[in-house]
């Protein structure tokens, strides 16, 4: 048994060795892990045969049993297993990669046994990550915070894709716990912020690749990958194979849901996204892709009308998530500091107005954004919080919003009409 009130990373234990002779080891030592052979989580295909379902259930049962065993281990033994058992890390990552998302077009077969096992493994996986994100389990069981930060980072116990997976898989009902987990991970190991910095350009490339696959381009994408003169004519959203089109919409709904879930659960990430010009690229993408994809969903010939409606709902859901993500970015980086009455309110107000101004050319995005989050509300807030706000500028923005609604043939929202009447 490890000694109490000393961080785990400094503890030593005396226990019998392989030949029975007592030996002293650091509490965290590879020889203290048990050879358990965690199996990976496997994706169950939609048209699985009974034998495949049975095999899936067997894998899941083994994982649940092993993780329950793991969670029941004392603190020191748990961490030896986590750090030195590669099969455990493979098992956890395989779940994050393959676990069905509720937004997947094919969900697990509706067998009660499969559903029950899936629920059970889902919770056990979450608890395992929760324990791995906890550096202080009790007064007796804890790490030196800086060593904890080093351990989780150096051993890839958490990385940015894993954190995003955790958000999209568990964030809906466990946001509070997830926030505490992710906040602790980033606090104990600030290198995760650098990794996030490195990740945002790849996220942007995902949007570029969608535009590219649809034969569309926006300014950012052109700047990165100039089109070759000899390039073959790209298929468009209308002309590509149906499965490719379905995949694009699935990819878009997964990407937008994941990004939104992450920003919602961990608002501190918003600053990083904003600093990489994410907001501008998102609005450009929205403007370029959404009308084109909508047109394709409406006009393409689908044998299965259910699929067509499902794709529309997915696209529309993606639009909501993009708009909500833009709002989260503005809320956490500009509006919240103003609401909290922080210093430099004028600077935050200036930034907010700058962002609104940058939305003006993107009429479709602007109209959709304004319908969800009336810009008049935010401008009204600015007028209340900062007396010296430039009215000419705010008026110019509101005219732009009106114009966006008009150009799309949409009626002006009530909030806008009322605001204009009172101002």
């Amino acid at each position, binding site marked *: 048994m490890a000694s109490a009130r000393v961080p785990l990373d400094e503890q030593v234990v005396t226990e019998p060795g392989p030949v029975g002779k007592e030996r002293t080891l650091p509490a965290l030592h590879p020889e203290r892990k048990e050879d358990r052979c965690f*199996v990976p989580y496997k994706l169950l295909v939609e048209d699985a045969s009974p034998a495949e379902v049975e095999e899936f259930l067997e894998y899941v049962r083994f994982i649940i049993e092993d993780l329950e065993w793991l969670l029941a281990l004392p603190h020191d033994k748990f961490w030896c297993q986590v750090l030195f058992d590669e099969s455990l890390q493979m098992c956890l990552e395989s779940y994050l*990669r393959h676990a069905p998302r509720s*937004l*997947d077009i094919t969900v697990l077969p509706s067998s009660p046994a499969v559903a029950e096992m899936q629920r059970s493994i*889902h919770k056990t996986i979450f608890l395992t990550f929760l324990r791995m994100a906890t550096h202080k389990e009790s007064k007796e069981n804890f790490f030196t915070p800086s060593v904890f930060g080093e351990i989780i980072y150096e051993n890839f116990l958490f990385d940015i*894709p894993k954190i995003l997976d955790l958000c999209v898989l568990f964030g809906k009902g466990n946001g509070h716990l997830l926030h505490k987990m992710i906040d602790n991970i980033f606090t104990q190991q600030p290198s995760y912020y650098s990794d996030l910095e490195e990740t945002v350009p790849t996220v942007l490339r995902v949007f570029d690749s969608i535009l590219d696959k649809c034969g569309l381009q926006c300014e950012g994408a052109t700047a990165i990958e100039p089109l070759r003169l000899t390039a073959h004519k790209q298929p468009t959203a209308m002309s590509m194979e149906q499965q490719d089109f379905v995949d694009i919409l*699935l*990819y878009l709904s997964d990407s937008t849901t994941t990004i939104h879930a992450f920003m919602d659960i961990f608002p501190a990430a918003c600053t990083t996204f904003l600093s990489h010009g994410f907001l501008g690229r998102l609005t450009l993408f929205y403007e370029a892709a959404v009308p084109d994809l909508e047109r394709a969903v409406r006009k393409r010939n689908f044998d299965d009308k259910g699929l067509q409606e499902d794709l529309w*709902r*997915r696209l529309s859901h993606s639009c909501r998530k993009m708009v909500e993500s833009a709002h989260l970015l503005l809320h956490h980086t500009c509006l919240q500091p103003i609401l909290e009455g922080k210093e430099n309110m004028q600077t935050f107000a200036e930034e907010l107005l700058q962002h609104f101004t940058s939305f003006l050319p993107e009429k479709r995005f602007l109209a959709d954004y304004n319908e969800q989050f009336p810009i008049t509300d935010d401008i009204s807030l600015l007028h209340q919080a900062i007396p010296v706000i430039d009215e000419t500028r705010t008026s110019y923005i509101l005219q732009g919003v009106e114009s966006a609604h008009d150009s799309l043939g949409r009626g002006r929202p009530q909030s806008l009409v009322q605001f204009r009447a009172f101002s």
Partner: protein
Amino acid sequence: MSHPRLTGALRSFSNVCKKEDFTEQRYDLKTKRLKRQELFAKEGLTWQKIVHFCSEHQDRAKQQAASQELKSLLLAAKQIVGADHGQEAIESAAVFLFETFHNKDHVGTEETRSIRQMFGPFPSVAAETSCNCVARLVAPLENSNVEDFIQTHSSHHNSKRGSSFGRNIVFSYDCYTLDPLEDFPSSSSHKDMSLDM
């Protein structure tokens, strides 16, 4: 087929995670079962302890009957674990069967699943035989004594009594669902059309 995911792209195209070949199959069910049998064999309850427990405090006739049942249980275990395994593996399997059936009067779904999980596919007749043998072995003994014997010697049972991390955590199974901004336009255009007509 795997689904197109943002995190899949990040794993492929960014440098912020460990690069591992996930197509490589580390452990399959067969390897896992062998490992599980190995771990079970290391647990506290042994075949010798069961033999001693079933024979002690019995008269000679009952001891002989018990000895016969124990032999039959070993034979059934051999059929379940496979003939190519050594005596140690067979005895360990017999221990597992004794633990599984000590308080059961028939081979139910749970027991079938449990045996299959440990040894893979097995002849059902061997499970029936095991169940009957164990029933006859424990019949002359007090139920509470058998239960105490299992609880005392099996580290598997003991470990389950311990506290587990997260048992008090309130976990939500809620998940994100599609939340579209607007419905598919065809439904509204249908309405328009019917009005026009």
